[in-house]
């Protein structure tokens, strides 16, 4: 039966069975212990965890290792049968990094759509004072889910970009650990499912930050969200191990550290942050889960706990997470700007090192999220100082982009337009935030500007830039430019009023506000802007779908770029490089006569494997 051969079908069926088994055994245990059989928290928690393990097994994720233990010949998982259609590999446990990159990106876009729709609903509620159609709890659940799902969508999005591009850019045939890579991806669909179930299970009204004590009392939806984000976290930890190993061990001959594209440097910085800091949010969420389920007293002062501990652990990850989100985006900007300015990247070494500078600086600034939380007073000045320090490496990048564009032959095609939007918006996001406007819409506008400038616009630039490589077809340039116009205008109309609203006393995470404040008009404008952004995304998806099916065939190198991924066919062959490329120079030698990044020999020369 072909249907049954699809990994995802097996995973879902076996996973559901496992989930039922887990819940059943828990209920039996509870009866044996003399408790009531059904208590939603513990029963569903065990059901979820067992279900996920069964799902992975059903998918075939453990097949290789089980085979290793039972000493079967190590057969490669044959994800797609020759008789199956082309798309089947995207729904199965496939280990090619390009498949996994596309899986990540599609999942990311789906999550971003859902999270965006949640916010559009909530935005309609706040467009005028008074309660329109949502209850305050539903409103808060929608906003919280918007936050945590967007963050997960961003994590999946950067994982997708890095998965697709890293091996191609460094001249490798695949990632260092292809099976681990597939597991990293397949941990995320159950997370998405749990996010979706969270709303029917009561949602959670804590905001995405899940601060206790509110998160200890929130409905079951809270628990689903905690488990879901824990899964996403492990996905990114395992992914980071893979990226770092791949970059440090599998670069093409001749690619020294300072011949790597900036996107690779950004990946190193991102992966280091993910590898180390995700553990902190993981443990913080696990502690919440344990306190909810077993009554341990981490955050309950009556039991010797302390709520500030959660905030420290949480922000110790979640501030570096900002850099996890934006560093790949800044890397994309550094890739796109030289190609469309036809000039070498200005100050390559400084830009390369500045990624690491941002990463290390970002490790010691988490306290600036807690100025109003009752943190020790003397910590304020050091945290303020370190925060200002991060502006230095960021400034290096921005001046490098400007200097690269300066006197360049700038081609204003869609990717470049998005990059320009990104730089401007990222600068707007850098406007300092003060203690007195804590928890207002100023903060909302600030971090959305950072994320639009650091992630959304660069990701759109990336999709428009690499789409021909991935699909072998060109995107519709006219529709792309229209999309860029509506998106940029939509962004400005949404968030510039929010800065004003924040200064005038509009608080975050409230469904209703006092009409006497006179905030109604600007809130309506922001809502209109939000829906413009939604319309823009619709244009974008139409362009994606139509161009992927009927776009003009793309040449191997439509943008005349020098980096490695453009030197192979579009889409790239299954193993990326038939012959191993030799790296002979800088990746950004545009406009320099005779400059080359790579030579790709014609004769076949397979890589030498040492086990």
């Amino acid at each position, binding site marked *: 039966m072909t249907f049954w051969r699809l990994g995802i079908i097996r995973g879902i069926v076996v996973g559901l069975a496992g989930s039922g088994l887990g819940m059943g055994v828990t209920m039996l245990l509870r009866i044996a212990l003399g408790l009531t059989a059904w208590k939603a928290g513990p029963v569903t928690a065990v059901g979820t965890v067992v279900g996920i393990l069964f799902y992975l097994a059903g998918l075939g994720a453990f097949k290789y290792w089980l085979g290793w233990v039972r000493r079967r010949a190590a057969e490669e998982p044959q994800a797609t049968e020759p008789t199956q259609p082309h798309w089947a590999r995207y729904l199965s446990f496939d280990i090619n990094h390009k498949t996994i990159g596309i899986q990540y990106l599609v999942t990311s876009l789906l999550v971003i759509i859902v999270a965006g729709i949640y916010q559009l609903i909530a935005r309609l509620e706040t467009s005028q004072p008074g309660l329109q159609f949502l209850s305050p709890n539903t409103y808060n659940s929608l906003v919280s889910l918007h936050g945590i799902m967007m963050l997960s969508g961003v994590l999946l999005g950067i994982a997708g970009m890095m998965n697709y591009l890293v091996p191609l850019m460094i001249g490798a045939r695949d990632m260092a650990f292809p099976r681990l890579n597939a597991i990293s991806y397949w941990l995320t669909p159950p997370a998405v499912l749990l996010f979706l179930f969270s709303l029917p299970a009561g949602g959670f009204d804590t905001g995405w930050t899940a601060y206790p004590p509110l998160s200890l009392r929130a409905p079951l939806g809270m628990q689903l969200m905690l488990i879901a984000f824990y899964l996403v976290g492990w996905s990114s930890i395992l992914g980071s191990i893979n990226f770092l190993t791949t970059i440090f061990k599998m670069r093409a001959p001749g690619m020294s550290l300072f011949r790597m594209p900036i996107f690779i440097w950004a990946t190193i910085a991102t992966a280091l942050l993910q590898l180390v800091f995700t553990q*902190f949010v993981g443990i913080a969420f696990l502690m919440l889960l344990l306190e909810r389920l077993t009554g*341990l007293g981490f955050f309950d002062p009556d039991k010797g706990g302390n709520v500030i501990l959660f905030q420290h652990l949480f922000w110790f990850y979640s501030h570096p997470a900002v850099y996890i989100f934006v560093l790949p985006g800044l890397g994309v900007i550094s890739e796109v700007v030289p190609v469309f300015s036809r000039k070498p990247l200005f100050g390559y070494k400084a830009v390369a090192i500045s990624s690491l500078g941002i990463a290390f600086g970002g490790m010691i600034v988490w306290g600036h999220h807690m100025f109003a939380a009752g943190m020790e007073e003397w910590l304020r000045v050091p945290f303020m100082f370190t925060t200002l320090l991060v502006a230095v490496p960021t400034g290096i990048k921005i001046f490098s982009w400007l200097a690269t564009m300066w006197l360049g032959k700038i081609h204003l095609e869609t990717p470049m337009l998005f990059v320009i939007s990104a730089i401007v918006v990222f600068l707007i996001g850098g406007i300092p935030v003060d203690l007195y406007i804590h928890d207002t819409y100023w903060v909302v506008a600030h971090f959305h500007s950072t994320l639009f400038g650091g992630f959304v616009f660069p990701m759109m630039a990336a999709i428009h830039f690499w789409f021909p490589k991935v699909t072998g077809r060109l995107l519709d340039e006219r529709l792309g430019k229209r999309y860029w116009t509506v998106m940029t205008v939509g962004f400005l109309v949404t968030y510039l009023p929010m800065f004003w609203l924040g200064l005038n006393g509009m608080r975050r995470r409230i469904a209703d506000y006092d009409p006497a404040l006179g905030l109604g008009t600007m809130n309506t404008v922001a809502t209109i802007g939000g829906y413009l952004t939604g319309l823009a995304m619709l244009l974008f998806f139409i362009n994606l779908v139509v161009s992927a099916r009927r776009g003009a065939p793309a040449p191997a190198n439509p943008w005349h770029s020098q980096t490695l991924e453009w030197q192979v066919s579009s889409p790239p062959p299954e193993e990326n490089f038939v012959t191993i490329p030799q790296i002979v120079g800088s990746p950004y030698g545009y406009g320099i006569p005779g400059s080359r990044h790579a030579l790709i020999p014609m004769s076949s020369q397979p890589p030498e494997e040492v086990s």
Partner: protein
Amino acid sequence: MSRATTLVINRLTIKRLGLWLFILSESFLFLALLVVRFYLQGVQRPTELNQPLGFVISGILLLSSLTAYRGESAIAYGDEKLFRRNILFTLGLGILFLVGVGIEWAEGFRFFPPASGFGTVFFTLTGFHAFHVLTGLLALLTLVLPGQKGRFTPENYWAVEGIVKYWHFVDVAWVFIFPTLYLVS
């Protein structure tokens, strides 16, 4: 600047780097747990805590690292019998350690229950560590299953090396947890 012109992909060094990165990540998990201990409880320690038993199980776990190391060395020299014997010793010592933790837990439930200040910290730290010991034991077990006879050779024993390294890591984590819970005051 330029390196060799032929691409050499050394799977062994790739696997080693991957494992070290995993261990780096996991050590930050334990770091976070130590932070939790000091943030919530400072250096408080209840007098009921069974220090002698703590010393005994620490000794057992350290000894198991020694046998694991001897097992790895044995297979590096191709002595399969010695290898299996030492890994089995390691398994036994690991199980003894878990039994010791179980006794500690039983005493803990009486004197400092999980919902109390020190109890929360004690059960969390030992619980997370015991979970890692358990995964290490399962991994070690896969090395000495009857079907694995003759599998590892001096040329090819990465699985042994990797799992033993992980086992050492679990021991080192305990070396930090033990004084944090049992000695400071």
